[in-house]
């Protein structure tokens, strides 16, 4: 019970800090922390899939791309309300996720991981092929751009809603079913869990989260959806975020998202590091270091700390 109260208290504090943060920050830093919200949503989605249902995806950058292009194209062609396009991105990516989830039923483990990896590499190539509709390598410019504050507010509101949604979904029947699938598919089926339904649904919902993140991601880059922004590195960053967060727990996600969203930018300001290459070196080193020290991510650390608090 004390753990429960402790968690609620922590959430309240974190939420309050996030809500008050823009008042004390420069415009630039508000934009930077809005990026954390983008990664928070995407890592959260990936965690639902990989952490709860045990299906590894290295391709969530692809869903972010689809979400981002949905927003940019709808805004360009119909000047649709931007928040509405985020909802559309959610729905479109949910559908795409279901479609990808179907072949995923037949594959498992590393094979699935590599197919999703293929997805991450392939999707950014598609705008290059169909350049009339999707703008080629120049990308698609949405009709409106937003301020950093708008991005921060909408981003964290969306993050909060999606976090609560994930928590509601996963605490009950669905969460139990997914965890049982992760631990043993055969045992899950024997206990009456309908494997195809749950696995595909997990893929869909996870992709939908990535879609919303992609939509915000595009708005954060001045409303430009460009193929190189959604390269393989983005998918890898999401996976790093999920691993740093710790799989199978919603609580470490904030740490994972902050790690991948802030670290490259912060290390840029360290004098010795300076360049893009130095930044890569620092980021790579830290990723390795964190994984060596915390193989189960921040959630594992948090879990140990909580257990220490109330045994």
């Amino acid at each position, binding site marked *: 019970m004390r753990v429960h109260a402790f968690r609620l208290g922590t959430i309240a504090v974190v939420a309050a800090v996030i809500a008050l943060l823009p008042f004390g920050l420069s415009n630039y830093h508000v934009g930077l922390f809005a990026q954390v919200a983008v990664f928070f949503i995407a890592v959260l989605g990936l965690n639902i899939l990989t952490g709860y249902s045990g299906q590894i995806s290295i391709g969530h950058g692809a869903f972010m791309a689809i979400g981002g292009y949905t927003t940019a194209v709808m805004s360009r062609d119909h000047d649709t309300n931007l928040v509405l396009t985020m909802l559309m991105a959610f729905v479109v990516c949910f559908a795409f996720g279901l479609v990808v989830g179907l072949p995923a039923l037949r594959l498992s483990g*590393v*094979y699935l991981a590599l*197919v999703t990896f293929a997805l991450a590499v392939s999707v950014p190539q598609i705008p290059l092929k169909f350049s009339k509709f999707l703008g080629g390598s120049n990308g698609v410019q949405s009709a409106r751009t937003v301020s950093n504050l708008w991005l921060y507010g909408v981003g964290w509101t969306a993050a909060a809603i999606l976090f609560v949604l994930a928590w509601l979904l996963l605490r009950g029947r669905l969460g139990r079913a997914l965890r049982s699938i992760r631990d043993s598919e055969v045992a899950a089926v024997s206990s009456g869990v309908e494997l195809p339904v749950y696995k595909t649904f997990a893929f869909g919902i996870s992709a939908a989260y990535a879609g919303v993140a992609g939509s915000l991601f595009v708005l954060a880059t001045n409303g430009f959806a460009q193929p190189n922004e959604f390269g393989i590195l983005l998918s890898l960053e999401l996976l790093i975020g999920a691993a740093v967060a710790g799989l199978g727990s919603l609580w470490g996600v904030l740490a994972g998202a902050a790690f991948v969203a802030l670290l490259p930018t912060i290390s840029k300001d360290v004098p010795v590091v300076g360049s893009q*290459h130095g930044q*890569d070196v620092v980021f790579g*080193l830290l*990723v390795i270091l964190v994984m060596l020290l915390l*193989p189960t991510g921040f959630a594992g650390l948090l879990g140990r700390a909580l257990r220490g608090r109330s045994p």
Partner: protein
Amino acid sequence: MAAAETRTGTQLRNGAASLRGLVRPIPLLLAGAVVFLALGSTFSTIFAQQTVAGLAQGAVYSSLALALVLIYRATEVINFAQGEMAMATTYVAYQLILWGLPYWGAFFVTLAVAFVFGTVVQLALIRPVQHKSVIAIVIITVGLFILIDGLVAWKWGADIKFMPSPFGQTVYHVGGVPVAQEDLGTLLVVVISVVLLWGLFRFTKLGLGMRAAALRPDAARLVGVRVDRMLAVGWGLAAVLGAVAGLMAEPAAFVLQPSFMQPILLYAFSAAVLGGLESPIGAVVGGLALGVFLNLVGQYVPFVTSEIRLPFAFLVLLVVLLIKPSGLFGRARVRRV
């Protein structure tokens, strides 16, 4: 991975396989493909030319794919940094040649460096988390990818470098078909390294130990195999194969640049998966098949332009996997719950 292949399960499967073994689809398919390529080559010079060029490219994919398979068998993870490790060792060769070593001298020194590099990576980064978390190992290789990329760009710069080709620009004519010496040389080097590696695994005590360590680590430890040491050697050998791939890919790509192995890594992934991740033969066949297939499709199917060459390769891969979820030469695993 808590589940293990059960002995009875394997026997049952083998029994079933031998019943169905009267008609073997995969060898038949391959034989068909070889006949098709041979026939096509006799009818059309361009076809023959594309086939040979495809084989040379495919050999590079094969060699990197084989490195991935070696590590997958030993550690049960995909090493995302394999391509970047190969890239870094290629830069080592570049530096050695710059210092005045002859090409083949630099070649062999580089392979030695690669071996040490691979071993050190396993000992320092992989072993500490070996049995704790698969995802941690994967992420560490991803981190290594980013780290090596940054380090190489820092040391040598991200701009394009030129390195002499070990093979001249000579072009032979075999029955009217122009065949570049470079393609033949690449094929030859890869074939020699694969055969040497096969010999090592098949005929030496070290190879036996490594196979045992990868297949049944606990049982191997009981009979006195130094499993940890074997795994480290496995990573070293994989790095050597990667270095061969990098050194052979470089003249074909004409440029040396920190990102030059990335597309090759993707094709090597596809090749390894196509062949079945646990099968060395599969990796070699998969790589060659992919190289030839892509070259021929690029030549004869106008829709497949260079932008969607890679997605197209993946689409084919997906279709193969949907028909045979564990690759062409992979065996479905029987797991105990």
